């Protein structure tokens, strides 16, 4: 990388000078910023619990989205395996795990869509209905947007992978995307706990 000439006076240590991979650090920074955004929406949700003047309450209309949650959290495992196999050079296995991740993520999105359809059509709950509607749709919607974005990136990666363009030396970059996906799943754990467990 660099020649050690010029400015150094006798350097007594010969230990290699290594710094973290910039993709990981950059993604960590992005995760911190995005977490701060989510925290604000979660705070709004908790603050307004029980304060709606009208309309359906969480206990009345929400059901635990067990299936979707299992799918989403499993996709964290599959994406981890995608990275691990890529590091070992098992390209076909890696592609398979990536495809599973995308598939599981899509299932999660579909369960969310179905849930919202039910809430809007059958229960009459929209973002305008009351404070619960406002905070519920914005928080879950923000998370779903992040899932969509992650799925787009993962699908692109899957496409490259199917063409054999993703190899062992790219594993750090793939891991950066995996980190984002883990973040999305971690946010879901929080949203699930706050909205569907504590809030009802």
């Amino acid at each position, binding site marked *: 990388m660099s020649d050690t000439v*010029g*400015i150094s006076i006798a350097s007594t240590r010969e230990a290699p*000078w290594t710094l973290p991979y910039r993709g990981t650090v*950059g993604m960590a*920074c992005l995760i*911190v910023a995005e977490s701060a955004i989510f925290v604000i929406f979660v705070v709004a949700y908790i603050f307004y619990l029980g304060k709606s*003047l009208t309309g359906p309450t969480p206990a009345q209309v929400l059901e635990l989205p067990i299936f979707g949650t299992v799918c989403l959290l499993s996709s964290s495992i599959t994406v981890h395996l995608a990275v691990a196999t890529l590091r070992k050079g098992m390209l076909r296995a890696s592609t398979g795990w990536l495809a599973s991740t995308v598939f599981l993520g899509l299932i999660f999105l579909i369960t969310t869509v179905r849930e919202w359809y039910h809430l809007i059509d059958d229960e009459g709950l929209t973002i*305008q209905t009351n404070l619960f509607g406002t905070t519920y749709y914005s928080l879950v919607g923000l998370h779903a947007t992040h899932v969509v974005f992650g799925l787009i990136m993962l699908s692109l990666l899957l496409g490259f992978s199917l063409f054999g363009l993703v190899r062992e030396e790219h594993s750090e970059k793939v891991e950066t995307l995996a980190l984002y996906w883990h973040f999305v799943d971690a946010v879901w754990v929080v949203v699930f706990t706050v909205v569907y467990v504590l809030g009802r």
Partner: protein
Amino acid sequence: MSTTHVVDKIDETLTPQQGRPPLNVVYEWLRTVDHKKIGLMYIAYALVFLIIGGVEATLMRIQLAIPNNHFVSPQVFNQLFTMHGTTMVFFVGMPILFGFGNYLVPLMIGARDMAFPRLNAFSFWVSAFAGLLLYFSYVGGSGLYAAGSAPDVGWFAYAPLTAKVFSPGHSTDYWTLAIFLSGIGSIGTALNIVTTIICMRCKDMKLSRMPLLVWLYLVMSSLVFVAVSPLTAAQVMLTLDRYLGSHFFDTQAGGSAVLWMHFFWIFGHPEVYVLVLPAFAFVNEIVPVFSRKAIFGYPAMVAASVGIGFISLSVWAHHMFTVGMGAAANTFFVFATMVISVPTGIKIFNWLATIWGGHVIFRTPMIFCVAFLFQFLVAGLTGIMLSVAPFDWQLGNSYFVVAHFHYVLVGAILTALFGAFYYWYPKITGRMMSESLGKWHFWLFIIGFHLTFDFMHVPGLLGMPRRIYTYEAGRGWEGWNIIVGIGVVFQALGTLCFVYNLVHSYVKGKEAGHDPWDAWTLEWSTSSPPPDYNFAVLPTVNSRRPLWDLKHPEDPDSDYE
């Protein structure tokens, strides 16, 4: 002062800039991903908006010079103070500080560029677009008042004044969208700065050997992540309220006006630390060089900076002492705010101790830093007054607060920035700025600053609230407002001197060489201006002041660290 060529291996064969068709040069700047060019574009952009923001302020001071004045209508005045505040924070403060960070951080850590050059360019262009969008509101959109539909809700846009029913039309949306985009640019650049500092330092530059400027930009950028994001979230909520009928801040539906205030100030208070930390950074570099002494207490300076960053996240509701939060909450925020004065004081004492026992050289960069020290001291002390919640119940939302925060923004931050301009201009352009013009700039500006902002405290003590387009006669406010207005003239003249100096020195300035100030950090080891690749050979460092070690091989810093 002696100048030393410390590296003989620098490649001086640069592409000659003269004789290239102008269009090529423009195209190169539009497409660039080089941190130095992007930094300069940020700075130039900010300077343009500084002038515009200053014009807005001048118009307001004319309106307020006498009671019941009719220079501008109330609607226009309300737009002026909104645009002035929004412009100065988001389109002057943030860009100019990110510009300096962009330029200096890679050079000072011995890197060739930022970690993500394309993200760097993207962040700049998004921020630039955001500013243009905000100013388009003066001429475009479907507003109700004169001067187009520029926002008139104040730079903190309290709910429910920003609800569709109280602010019809699109003026508020210009505010929301422009700042939302600016926030994206800020987070992008902050991400870049943090990653660059963590991942791209030159060999053996441990964190404990980084220049203090780099430390402060690390803390400032980390603060941006945690501070700007809440504002982004709040703006999404506001837009959902205005367009999708949600009820985040809709008090008629049980929503809370106070919630907006919390979210805004969770952003707003750390934001002012985001703005002031780089000012500390500049002073940390300039004062030691012009006192000919190492900074006193480097570890304490690092600890204090990091401490200020953390504590600043816990003080936000001192902007809300009059909201009726209850005695317990008020007391907590009093305590947190007072606590932050301890690390801040430590920094001031360390600067004092750096000067103590040195050989102080009063060139232009240093005299601006000296002014910074006195003015920041005063600003901090009026801040302590405001932290006493009962006193804030009188002083809050009055001209005393306006005077206090302008003391910080202009008296500390802008003053330190002027010092930074004079200090690094030779590195950036290869020419020295004129010392005599610099002194004219300094005295005109400082006299104007004090006329305006010292005397602005008094109407606040006499009961004058902020954001009023006029006032009754007989309250005792008249004379003070005139003095405040006179100071504006001096500040304008000083700024004109400065701009002229910038341009004139580029053409006629004395050649600077590598290291005109006999300084000690890595940027002074390369040519002025640096080549595109910054360093022919990436350096290795053994102490906090690598060039001191080279210039003083008999007594290097590495013996003491």
